[in-house]
């Protein structure tokens, strides 16, 4: 990539972020944010970080973008016009000053550090032991498996936290449907949804399998699965389950559960999250497939939201 490309990309990133924050129109802000996320994905590509680029575009721009759009719709239905109250001039002036100062401070700290690939070498040297070739997967599922394990519980906890917001008379009913099919013109969406869901499953399975050696992995695969589920739900091909559905609960805990069991099994062989020599790749793939399934279901349900009362379907 050339300098001009990098420079223009960075300007566009800052520009779309500024637009997303400064525009008065909430929908425009969300659209700018999604464009911003995709440009960030490009930036990660330009930095040769393909795994991050996929995660940023799929999760940072995709899932977060859909989430913001759905939330806006839900708020509009409640009569919230999403207009930010005008902040007093002195506050804005102060904020400009403080934030410029912070940017200058952080910027000069950034400039004082020389960019370097410090750990790439040591990681590459250890990968043959794991039998996988994608170093990022190696870091996520082996060297920093503990972080990743805890993170899957954050995701699960976020869904429980969303569910906890259900009003008294709503639990454990399903979330409001995203069904467009009822409002006419849905047959295309329905057919599309039916077609896309199996496709998403295949794609997700491939992403996990490829993730050991090429860019990809459980999180990217889970996002694809979630995307498929959402589109299928919009088309009416999938109905949201009730929160007390035991199959659903089993799917949600499958990934974290398998991860934790493999981690605890390691204790018998020496240490928590220890993979026996020669079996590292098998364990990593097993964790990733179960994680992808759980992450897909969790992300889709995070977008769907909590239980709603029967009289209230917006």
């Amino acid at each position, binding site marked *: 990539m050339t300098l001009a490309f990098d420079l223009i990309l960075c300007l566009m990133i800052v520009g779309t972020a500024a637009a997303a924050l400064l525009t008065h129109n*909430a929908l425009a802000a969300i659209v700018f944010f999604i464009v911003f996320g995709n440009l*960030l994905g490009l930036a990660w590509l330009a930095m040769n970080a393909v795994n991050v680029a996929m995660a940023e575009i799929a999760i940072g721009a995709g899932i977060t973008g859909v*989430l913001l759009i*759905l939330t806006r719709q839900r*708020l509009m239905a409640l009569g919230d016009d999403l207009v930010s109250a005008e902040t007093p001039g002195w506050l804005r002036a102060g904020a400009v000053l403080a934030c410029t100062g912070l940017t200058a401070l952080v910027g000069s700290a950034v400039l004082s550090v020389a960019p370097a690939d410090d750990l790439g070498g040591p990681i590459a040297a250890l990968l043959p032991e794991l039998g996988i070739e994608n170093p990022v997967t190696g870091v996520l599922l082996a060297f920093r498996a503990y972080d990743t394990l805890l993170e899957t519980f954050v995701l699960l906890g976020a869904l429980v936290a969303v569910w906890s917001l259900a009003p008294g008379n709503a639990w454990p009913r399903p979330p409001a449907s995203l069904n467009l099919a009822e409002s006419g013109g849905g047959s295309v969406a329905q057919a599309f949804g039916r077609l896309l869901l199996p496709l998403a499953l295949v794609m997700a399975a491939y992403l996990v399998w490829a993730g050991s050696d090429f860019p990809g992995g459980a999180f990217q695969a889970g996002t694809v699965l979630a995307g498929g589920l959402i589109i299928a739900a919009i088309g009416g091909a999938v109905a949201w389950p009730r929160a007390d559905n035991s199959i659903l609960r089993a799917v949600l805990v499958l990934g974290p559960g398998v991860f934790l069991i493999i981690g605890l099994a390691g204790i018998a062989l020496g240490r928590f999250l220890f993979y026996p020599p020669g079996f590292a790749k098998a364990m990593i793939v097993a964790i990733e497939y179960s994680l992808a399934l759980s992450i897909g279901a969790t992300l889709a349900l995070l977008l769907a939201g909590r239980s709603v009362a029967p009289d209230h379907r917006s």
Partner: protein
Amino acid sequence: MPTLMHLYPLTGAALVGLGLYGIVTLRHPLRQLLAVNVVGAGIFLILGGLGRGTASTDPFPQALVITGIVVAVALTAFGAALVVRVAEEERARDDTAAVEATGDSA
């Protein structure tokens, strides 16, 4: 010694400042949530962007960034649900108040 490699992490620093400005000045919680995500993206650019060698990018910070992105979406989803629930409760309160007001005048 600033280099061209500093371009992306510097962009990250700008996003941190911009996002913070948004958090402070935007009054609607959903807009604040969006601003928080801009700050997060800026931090990720600093974390990953300063891990670039001449030929490669350090996979270690890349993995940390992916973890960070997933944690961010989890918290954003809960935050969004909370914003909706607060709006719902306030609307219900307004409705009750309106009903009571008419009841009093009748």
